[in-house]
């Protein structure tokens, strides 16, 4: 009897899960399908399979300029977030200083704070010190907001790092600096690569903070945003499909790396857990 009800329950659950997956993937599938649709976005059923939108996309200078801008921003933001986030994680793990609890909350806050607040508070700062809005201000904005990601990921990695690793290095005659580069960083390798990848994609996609800090040069999401306000065009489906495939490739690569290194991969759970205790 219990086996029977168990089966019923799990069948119910299966249908539910299937429905959720359908809900999650419906827009993505629609997006991809209509990027090949000759009659534009909308209209059922899709007809006139075409690559025209991709052709149009590749000839569209403004989009590619914004893609280049976005990549520059994402790379620079990645460097800033890691350069500040890794020491921040170390400080949370092994530093003793007054206000540490406040520091932890502040660093991790942008992880869950709506982007609008981060964006406009930085806008006010830059206005106050007279910094002109440009890609640089976006980089500073993304870098600051995404320190939280680097800190959360690296801190989770540090919890798994055996303290004896660093002790052994010091014991064998390496000083703190040598130990940091030759033992601490290699041991945190996976966390750092994971954080870097996450920061890169999040920055590439970021719009709320950029919205306030944008100067003359558009990032890709802002370029798309601008076009959406003017009307719907399948070119956007095309560029989104390309970026989606690129992201998918990145996840698979990361997944492989992680499975090879430790036999399992759970992207983002550490982040979720860290964010959950941000308050």
């Amino acid at each position, binding site marked *: 009897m219990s086996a029977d009800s168990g089966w019923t329950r799990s069948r119910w659950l299966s249908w539910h899960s299937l429905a959720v997956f359908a809900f999650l993937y419906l827009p993505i599938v629609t997006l991809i399908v209509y990027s090949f649709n000759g009659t534009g976005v909308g209209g059922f059923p899709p007809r006139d399979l075409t690559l025209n939108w991709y052709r149009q996309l590749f000839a569209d200078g403004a989009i590619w300029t914004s893609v280049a801008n976005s990549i520059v921003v994402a790379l620079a933001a990645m460097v800033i977030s890691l350069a500040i986030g890794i020491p921040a994680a170390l400080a949370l793990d092994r530093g003793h200083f007054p206000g540490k609890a406040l520091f932890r909350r502040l660093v991790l806050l942008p992880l869950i704070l709506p982007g609008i607040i981060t964006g406009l508070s930085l806008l006010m700062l830059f206005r106050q010190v007279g910094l002109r809005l440009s890609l640089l201000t976006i980089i500073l904005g993304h870098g600051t907001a995404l320190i939280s990601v680097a800190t959360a990921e690296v801190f989770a990695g540090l919890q798994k790092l055996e303290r004896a*690793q660093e002790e052994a290095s*010091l014991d*064998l*005659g*390496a*000083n703190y600096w040598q130990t940091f580069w030759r033992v601490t960083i*290699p041991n945190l390798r996976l966390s750092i690569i994971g954080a870097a990848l996450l920061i890169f994609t999040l920055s590439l996609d970021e719009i709320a903070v950029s919205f306030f800090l944008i100067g003359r040069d558009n990032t890709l999401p802002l370029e798309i945003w601008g076009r959406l306000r003017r009307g719907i065009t399948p070119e956007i489906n095309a560029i989104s499909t390309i970026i989606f495939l690129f992201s998918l490739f990145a996840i698979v690569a990361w997944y492989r790396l992680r499975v090879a290194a430790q036999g399992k991969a759970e992207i983002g759970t550490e982040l979720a857990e860290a964010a959950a205790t941000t308050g």
Partner: protein
Amino acid sequence: MGTITQSVDAQSAQAKPGSSLLSIREVSKSFGKNLVLRRISLEVAEGEFLTILGESGSGKTTLLRIIAGFENADSGEIVMSGERLDLLPPYRRRVNTVFQNYALFPHLNVRDNIGYGLSVTKLPKSEIASRVEQALAMVKMQTYANSKPAQISGGQQQRVALARALVNRPGLLLLDEPLSALDANLRRQMQVELKSLQHEVGISFVFVTHDQEEAMVMSERIALLRMGDLEQVASPREIYNRPATAYCAQFIGHTNLLRGEVKDGVARCNALSWRTGLRDGLGLFSLRPENIRPAVGAAAQGMVRFRGKIKNQAFHGATELLQVECTDGLLLFVRTSSQGNWRDEMELEFAAADAVPVRESHEAS
């Protein structure tokens, strides 16, 4: 109690004849309100194999970490070859450690693990390479030089950890329960290897363990630590035969503790009595089970005889452990060679000299 312990320890803490390499002076350490080490003084001689023995929580690992430099002592000092060791950062100390779980670097192969300490020095590359090869040969790991730590067995990891620590030619090697992760057979084999290796390289070893048998087998001297106090520092033989405290007697080997009274040169414990040189007062004696035996013939000078009933009998292979109840109800353990056919009641004896007076150990709180 405290003052007696210190005065006695101050004597026994003297190193064996030979020059002193390391001297630990009045080192104390607490974590919060928890006092972990209480004014520990200990000498380590050049080329000596010294074991710090204690149960978990005795402070033995903390003492080791203070010598290595991973913890700072609250007070006291440590001197090595005439130089203050405790003021140096860990990477300046001529002390190397074999960690409990080896702490091999997972991202480096066996050769690079061993070469790690040399690679941060300014030695020429060729010399580093040849010393690493020597070290690999010393622990017979040449064929695994390119393996990552995760690819070799526990015993092999143990060897690599040893080679990695010894290749730097430290003045002193610290070993933090290095054998505890190994299974019993491998463990016995490594005990022998470690001992002969120490003989070969001639470096002083300070070995931390909770296993009294391991301590007995390997050490020249044992420092027995209990709740942050040194109970006794002496050779295994001396600790076994002349335990200083009740705790020493019980922790190292098996013993009968006899609590009694001394009056006019005679010690009395229940119905047992024997002549002793102690002054009047309460007395505590340790009597090893193997020093009690079935009585034969007439009682000799200095022997104590009594009758007992066998309550329990446990077969241990070469020996047998009996639990005997004396006529007055006192329970004693007796170890004899295995014969099997004991009568229920019999006459037993021990030499008065084997009832070793010991100091009371303060109760664990």
